[in-house]
C-alpha cells in the first residue's frame, strides 16, 4: 500500500505527460512550426499573374553561396523601383548575392518589357567585393538634388553610393561622400530629410551578429548636405539603441499631437526600429530636447522578438496610423506573431503601443518578411500582402535548435562558435505568402491562393508599383535564393486616382502627407517608400476609389507651413502635380 502511495505521483505525471503529448503540447504537429495555418477564402475579387519571365527579369538570386556564410535569416534580397533614366517609366533594381554583379538593374522600355543593364560599375570586381560579402538593401533617391536618382546600397561590410550621372551612367561616390569608413553588416536603409534642410538623409541599420568584427552596433543616422554624409546619430537621437536591428518604419503615428507642428512646417515622423534579437524601440521627436527620444512602453518583450519587416498606413481611413510588423512566430518558445500597432494614447509622453493584429486577424502568417499595405482591388480599403518563408534549403528542420540558440542571452552568443550547424537544414520551408484583403467590416481575409499568388519561394523585399500604368498596383518581390517575382495585378477594373508630385529644385516628396477628400470618404497617405525591409516603392501615391468621386487633395510638405491644395483631379489617371505651378 505504501508502495502504491509512492507510485501515485509518478503515475500522475505520466498521465499528465500523456495528455500533453496527445495534445501536441511538447512537440509540434509537423516539422515546420512556422507553417501558414490560417484559413483562406476560396473566392476573391483580386487576381494576379506572375510574369517576371515575360517581362524580361531573368536573373536568379543565388543566396546559398558561399556556404560558409549561409545563415537562415540572410536578407540579400532587396528591390527598388525608380526611374533611373527619367523617361517616365519605372525601372527595377535588385540586390544580387553570389554573382559577378552585386546589383541587377533593369530598364523599362515603356512597352511592357525590361532589359538588364550591364555596367562595369555594377560588378563585384569593380569594388573588390569579396565572395563572403553581399548586399542587403537598396535605396534609390536623389542625394544631390540634381534631378537623377542615385543608388545607396547597404550590405555586409559596407555601404556603396553610386551617383547617377544621367543617361544611365554612374560613378562610385562612396569615398567622396564620406561613406567608406563605415564597416559593418548593414541591413536596411530608410530615407527622409530628418533635419529638413532639403537634402535627403539616411537611417542605416546594422546587424552586428552577422559579423563579430563589426564595430557598429547601433543604427546610424547619416545627415546629407548634398555632397557628403555625416554621422549625426548621437546628435539626433537622445537615447540608447539596441543592436540587431532589421528595418525601420517611419510614420506620423501621433497625428493629433503632430498636426500643430505641421502648421509650423515641422515634420518629424515617429520611428519604429524593428529588432529581431532584442527589443524593438519606438522613437518620437522630443521638441524640448530637439532630438528623438524613446517613448513609453511598447509591446511585451516576449511578443516583440523577431520583427523583421512591415509597413505603415492609415489602415481604416480614420486618420490613425497603424504599423504592421512582420515577425517570426516562435511557437512554444514564446508568443510571437505579426503585430498591428497603434498608439493607445494620444498623449505622446505615454505613447503606449498596443497590438490589434488578433482583432483584425492579421496576426498569423508564417515566418513573415516584407509586407505592404496597398489597395489591391481599388475599392478604397487597404489590403496587406506579406511575403513568407525563411530557408528552404536542406532536409533537416532547424526550428528547435535555432530557437534554442535564440534563447541564449544575446551578449553571450556573439561569434560563430555559439551558432548551430545549419548545413542541410531548412526553416519555414516552402511557405506560401499571405494576401489579406480588407473586408467592409475591417476584418481581413487571406486570399493568396484565390488571388493566384502561388509561389513558395522565401520572400524578402516587397515593393509596390504600377509597372504598366493601368492604375492597378503590382507586387514586385525579391526572393532569397530564388528568382525575383512580379505579380501583375489583373483584378477587375475599379476607380482609382494616382498622384505624382514634382517638387521645385528636385526636392524629394518623401515624408509628404496626402489627404484625399472624396464624396464618400477621406483617405490619407504618407509617402515613405523605404519603410520595411529591403524594398522601395515606386514614386507615386495611389488611392483606390471604389464608387467614390475625388473632390480635392491636400498635400502637406515637410518644411512648408501651408499645404498644397488641388481641386482639379482626374480619376483613373496619374495626376502629375508641379509644385512650382501651383
Amino acid at each position, binding site marked *: 500500500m505504501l508502495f502504491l502511495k509512492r507510485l501515485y*505521483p509518478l503515475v500522475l*505525471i505520466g498521465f499528465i505527460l500523456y495528455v*500533453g503529448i496527445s495534445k501536441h503540447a511538447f512537440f509540434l504537429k509537423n516539422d515546420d512550426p512556422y507553417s501558414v495555418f490560417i484559413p483562406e477564402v476560396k473566392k476573391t475579387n483580386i487576381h494576379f499573374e506572375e510574369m517576371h519571365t515575360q517581362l524580361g527579369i531573368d536573373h536568379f538570386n543565388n543566396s546559398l553561396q558561399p556556404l560558409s556564410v549561409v545563415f537562415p535569416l540572410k536578407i540579400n534580397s532587396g528591390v527598388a523601383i525608380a526611374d533611373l533614366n527619367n523617361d517616365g517609366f519605372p525601372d527595377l533594381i535588385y540586390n544580387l548575392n553570389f554573382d559577378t554583379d552585386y546589383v541587377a538593374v533593369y530598364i523599362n522600355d515603356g512597352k511592357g518589357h525590361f532589359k538588364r543593364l550591364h555596367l562595369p560599375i555594377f560588378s563585384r570586381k569593380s569594388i573588390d567585393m569579396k565572395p563572403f560579402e553581399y548586399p542587403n538593401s537598396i535605396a534609390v533617391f536623389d542625394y544631390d538634388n540634381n534631378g537623377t536618382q542615385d543608388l545607396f546600397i547597404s550590405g555586409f561590410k559596407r555601404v556603396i553610393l553610386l551617383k547617377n550621372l544621367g543617361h544611365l551612367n554612374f560613378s562610385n561616390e562612396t569615398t567622396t561622400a564620406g561613406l567608406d569608413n563605415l564597416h559593418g553588416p548593414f541591413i536596411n536603409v530608410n530615407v527622409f530629410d530628418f533635419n529638413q534642410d532639403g537634402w535627403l538623409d539616411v537611417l542605416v541599420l546594422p546587424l552586428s551578429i552577422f559579423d563579430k568584427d563589426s564595430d557598429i552596433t547601433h543604427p546610424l543616422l547619416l545627415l546629407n548636405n548634398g555632397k557628403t554624409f555625416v554621422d549625426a546619430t548621437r546628435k539626433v537621437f537622445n537615447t540608447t539603441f539596441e543592436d540587431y536591428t532589421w528595418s525601420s518604419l517611419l510614420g506620423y503615428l501621433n497625428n493629433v499631437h503632430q498636426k500643430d507642428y505641421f502648421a509650423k512646417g515641422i515634420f518629424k515622423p515617429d520611428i519604429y526600429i524593428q529588432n529581431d534579437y532584442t527589443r524593438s524601440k519606438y522613437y518620437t521627436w522630443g521638441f524640448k530636447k530637439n532630438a528623438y527620444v524613446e517613448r513609453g*512602453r511598447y509591446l511585451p518583450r*516576449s511578443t516583440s522578438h523577431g520583427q523583421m519587416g512591415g509597413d505603415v498606413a492609415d489602415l481604416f481611413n480614420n486618420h490613425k496610423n497603424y504599423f504592421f510588423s512582420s515577425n517570426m512566430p516562435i511557437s512554444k518558445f514564446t508568443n510571437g506573431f505579426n503585430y498591428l500597432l497603434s498608439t493607445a494614447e494620444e498623449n505622446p509622453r505615454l505613447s503606449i503601443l498596443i497590438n490589434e493584429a488578433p482583432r483584425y486577424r492579421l496576426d498569423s502568417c508564417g515566418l513573415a518578411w516584407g509586407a505592404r499595405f496597398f489597395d489591391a482591388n481599388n475599392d478604397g480599403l487597404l489590403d496587406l500582402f506579406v511575403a513568407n518563408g525563411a530557408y528552404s534549403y536542406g532536409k533537416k528542420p532547424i526550428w528547435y535548435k535555432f530557437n534554442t540558440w535564440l*534563447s541564449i542571452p544575446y551578449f553571450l552568443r556573439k561569434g560563430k562558435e555559439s551558432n548551430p550547424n545549419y548545413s542541410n537544414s531548412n526553416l519555414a520551408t516552402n511557405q506560401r505568402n499571405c494576401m489579406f484583403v480588407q473586408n467592409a467590416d475591417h476584418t481581413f481575409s487571406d486570399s493568396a491562393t484565390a488571388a493566384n499568388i502561388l509561389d513558395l519561394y522565401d520572400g524578402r523585399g516587397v515593393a509596390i508599383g504600377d509597372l504598366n500604368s493601368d492604375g492597378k498596383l503590382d507586387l514586385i518581390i525579391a526572393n532569397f535564393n530564388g528568382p525575383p517575382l512580379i505579380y501583375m495585378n489583373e483584378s477587375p477594373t475599379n476607380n482609382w486616382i494616382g498622384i505624382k508630385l514634382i517638387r521645385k529644385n528636385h526636392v524629394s516628396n518623401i515624408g509628404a502627407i496626402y489627404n484625399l477628400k472624396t464624396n464618400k470618404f477621406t483617405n490619407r497617405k504618407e509617402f515613405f517608400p523605404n519603410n520595411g525591409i529591403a524594398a522601395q516603392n515606386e514614386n507615386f501615391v495611389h488611392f483606390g476609389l471604389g464608387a467614390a468621386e475625388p473632390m480635392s487633395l491636400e498635400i502637406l510638405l515637410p518644411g512648408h507651413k501651408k499645404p498644397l491644395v488641388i481641386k482639379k483631379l482626374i480619376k483613373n489617371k496619374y495626376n502629375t502635380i508641379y509644385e512650382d505651378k501651383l
Partner: protein
Amino acid sequence: MKINYKLAYPLQLASLSAYVLFGFFNANLVRAGLVQWGLSVLSGLVTTYLINSFLKERKLNNFSAYISSTAVYLLCTSLSWYIHIIVSAIAVFTKVLVTNGKGNHVFNPAGFGMLISICLFPTMVTLDTMQFIDSYELLGLILTMGFSVVFLSNRLVLSLSYILGFIIAAAIRSYILPESFIFFFLPLFNPMNLIFLFHMISDPMTSPKSYKGQIVFGLSIALLDHFLRHNWVMFPTLISLMIMTALFFLYNGEVWLKLKTSEISA
C-alpha cells in the same frame, strides 16, 4: 548545514519580486503590465483562502502562494490576459493534489501548475524562453540572488550538481553531434532556465535534504534535460524536474523536509 528559514524564505520571496520589478522597469518585462502580476498573485491568494476554508488539517501559506504565483507570472506567457490567473490557481491547488505522508506537497507547485496548464491548454500557454535575454544586469541579479537563496536553503550542492550535469551532458552531445560545446552549454544561462534552477529545482520543500540525494537529483535532472533537448521536446527542464521528483519520491517516499504542521504555516 541547516536551512536558514529566517533568511531563505524571505529572500526567495524578495528575489522573485525583484526579478519582476527590475524586469519591468529595466528589462522590458511587460506581459500585460504589473496589473497582470497582481492578478496572478491575487488568484493564488484566493485559491489559498478557498482551500484553507475547506481543509482543516493543513493550512496553506499565503507567502508560498505569492512565490508560486510570481514564478508563474515570470515564466508563463500567453496572448490571453486571464491565463496567469488560471495557472496560478492550478499551481496553488497542486499543493493539495499530491502530498506525502506529512501532508507536504511533493511537486514544486509553480512547476507542476505550469505543466498541467501547458498540457490542458497547449495553444494558449507556453513558457517564455526569450524573456530577459537582452539584459545582462538582470542575468547578474538572477545569478546573485539565486545563489544566495540556494545557499541559505542548503541546496547549493543540488544547484552545482545540476550545473555540472548540464556541462557533462553538453560535452557528451558536442562529442557525438556536429555542434560546438558552446552551443549546448550556453542555454544554461537562459534567464528563465536559471529561475527554474534556483527557485524550483532547488526548492527545499520538494528536493532531497541529504547531499548525496541532492547530487543525484541535480545530475539526473540535468542529464534528462539534455536527453529531452536532444529529442526536441519542449520545456525540457520543467519535464525533467517533474519526472525526477516523481521517481525520487518513488525511491524514497519519506518527506524530505520533516516539518510540523505549525512550522509549515509560519
